[in-house]
């Protein structure tokens, strides 16, 4: 990375920015940002199946210059209520967002994530 590029770039995405997108479209949008060395923060806890899909798509893109991603999903304690609601809504093809926070970034920048149920810290190197 050139000296002038040594800056930490973080994109904060609101939930509305992902509205109407399929799981694959969301993953692609996030991975495009990460490929440009950006850290992405979303104001919702992404569901486990979307996270797994994101990891699967990431691994398909892993190569010499892109080793992968680091992810941290911090849901609110009430997430189980929302998951139950989503099970019902799934029958009519609707979902509600799970309150919380998601951080995704390139693993070549994020060196470590330390987490516990209520918080997390990231250690990055640019």
């Amino acid at each position, binding site marked *: 990375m050139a000296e002038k590029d040594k800056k930490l770039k973080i994109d904060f995405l609101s939930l509305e920015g992902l509205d109407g997108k399929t799981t694959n479209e969301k993953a692609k949008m996030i991975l495009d940002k990460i490929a440009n060395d950006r850290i992405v923060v979303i104001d919702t806890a992404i569901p486990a199946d979307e996270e797994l899909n994101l990891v699967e798509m990431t691994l398909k893109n892993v190569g*010499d210059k892109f080793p992968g991603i680091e992810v941290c999903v911090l849901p609110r304690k009430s997430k189980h209520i929302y998951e139950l609601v989503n099970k019902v809504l799934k029958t009519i093809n609707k979902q509600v967002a799970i309150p919380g926070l998601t951080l995704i970034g390139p693993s070549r920048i994020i060196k470590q994530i330390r987490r516990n149920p209520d918080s997390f810290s990231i250690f990055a190197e640019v």
Partner: protein
Amino acid sequence: MHSVLHKVRRLFERFFGGRKTIRLGIYGEPNTGKTTLANRISLDWLGEPVGKVSEVPHETREVQKKEHIEVKVGSKKLIINLLDMPGLATKVDYKDLMKYKDDDLEGKTKEQILSALPQEDLRKIADYHKMEVHSSKKKLADAISKQLGDAEFKKTLLSLNIRKRTKKFTMSKAKARAKEATEGIIEAIKWLDSVDTVLVLMDATKDPYTQVNLMLIGNLEAKKIPLVIVANKTDLAEASVDRIKESFENHPVVSISALRGDNLDNLYKAIAEHSKI
């Protein structure tokens, strides 16, 4: 199609009972002891190992299977189709692999391996097959070469975990290994649609509250796949099973040492109980 048929079978068994065989997936992060446990289960009941164990991450790069392992749990019989999965990760960096030493025996012939191994390892092989232990290394190697076929010889190396590491991974070998590892993880993710029960292996000496563990358990919960968390490496002084129990209090946790074979009976009981056999 395969996973759809599997779901139909699971549904049928749930309503009508009579499940006899379970497809048991061993999942977890790299280096949690998945292959050590798979080998222990397979050696105990079938007398043969599943795969190679190593301290190098991503040693298991494809799903390793052992079918029809009959395990006795009290008065019941459990038939397990065992699936040892590559370690789950969100990144695979070939540069990390270059810090480790390569296995010099990989791809070598029986004769080349026998001449590379120290006498101590040749004695172990001879002892294992109850052969006469010659004092001369050459005689010992000749006797082993004569008595064991290629397949039997490689199986013995696996069972005794005999290896030789001298040089670090070259860049091209590390890149090839990283590529295989990513393909293996994708395959392991796809298998989540076709397993009946999952053992989530965790290294009890490390912090269990990782995103990979949370993601795995979250997906198993969503897919309603029964799971048992296995706190492994309890033979090590720094192991803390309580830390795992506190982190995942809604799931059963069984502590074991796959290396020593400690507490496996309780693990089999937990598998039977949570698979609803």
